[in-house]
């Protein structure tokens, strides 16, 4: 079994446990949305459109984000923290590893991404 799969399964389990507490936190979702759309913060919209949400002129350097509600939280966290962990040649910046976004900010983003169908 490859590493990515193992990681996804492992995190799916831990994700299940955590969902209940996070999903209810609308403030966290709002905060995450703001980080996603603010240039000086995540600036994720520079590269990503988002399925089902109104994004102001999203870029196309990265994929349109969709079906993320079914992703384990840990997989989302890791993607933002360090995309190279699953894709060594990713064009996406490692927002956590480089110290740009804090643990709390990444968790807020994860809460927002979990609302993406």
């Amino acid at each position: 079994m490859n590493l990515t799969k193992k990681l996804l399964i492992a995190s799916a389990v831990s994700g299940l446990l955590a969902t209940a507490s996070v999903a209810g936190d609308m403030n966290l979702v709002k905060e995450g949305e703001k980080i996603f759309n603010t240039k000086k913060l995540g600036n994720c919209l520079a590269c990503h459109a988002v399925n089902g949400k109104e994004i102001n002129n999203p870029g196309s350097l990265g994929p349109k984000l969709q079906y993320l509600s079914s992703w384990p939280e840990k997989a989302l966290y890791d993607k933002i923290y360090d995309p190279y962990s699953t894709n060594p040649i990713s064009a996406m910046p490692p927002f956590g590893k480089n110290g740009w976004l804090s643990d709390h900010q990444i968790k807020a983003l994860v809460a927002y991404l979990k609302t993406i169908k």
Partner: protein
Amino acid sequence: MLLKVVKISALVAISACTLNAGSFDTQAEKDRQALVKYMEAKFSNPEKNKSFFPYSTEDELKRVIKKGVKAADLAKGSYAYDSIGREQYDDINEMPPYEDAIDEGEVLYGKKFANGKTFKECFPKTDIAGDYPYFDNKKKEVVTLTQAINDCLVANGEKKWNIKKGNMAKLEAYFSHQSKEAGKKVAIKIDSKEAAQAYENGKKAYYTQRGYLKLSCATCHVQGTGKRVRKEYMSPLLGHTTHFPVFRLKWGNLGTLERRLEGCNKDEGENPHKGSSKWAKEVLYFMSYMSNGLGIDGPDIRK
């Protein structure tokens, strides 16, 4: 997948920088031809070759991005394939905002320094935009046009100019215009082992991830060409140096290639290298070589 191939081949190109003793531009020429091939393949038919544009919408591939774009067209940057941007570009070019700057550049060219001499002493010819940067084999360094202009000022007891805008951009606009009128092309030479090394340094810098965003110039201007950051289509490395200085609507005035380079370098999340640094000059040497053979097309306008 294709992205992978491109990135890997870029790496291979960097690591395979064996320098041939006989002809010093062998590797550079190979790189340039590979870049032309890549760009022409990418834009031959975007709607069909979707793998080059994995995240673009069907609609924009059909309606916006032009097909059959050739290397020579890319001197126009993203306006070579962004048909909506091109319309706005053509509109503005009906009354180009840089025309006065060309005239003012001509005046600067003929204006006497305090010692009675003029720029003509240093630059007897004016259609020279395509000949810079060159590698000075005596000084063992890359010399950009900007640097040559400042060297001329200093040699004549004058103060250096700001390398990003103002007089520098105006004089360069005049040189660029003269070169365009004369039908001059980019003609960068690599004629020594040291020159080839400077080229390799520039290439390596161009493909190296930098800043907290860990983006390389190539992420956006090789693989990224034709994709968007927000609504801005990214232009190709091929053709990047042909049309400077540019009047940027965002700046509201004319700026040099050095100014643009610093801007993009900053966007990558890095404390930008100065346009006069060894780093920047070697990157410009590499970039300019990639545009060899394309017609000089400046000054121009950009968003």
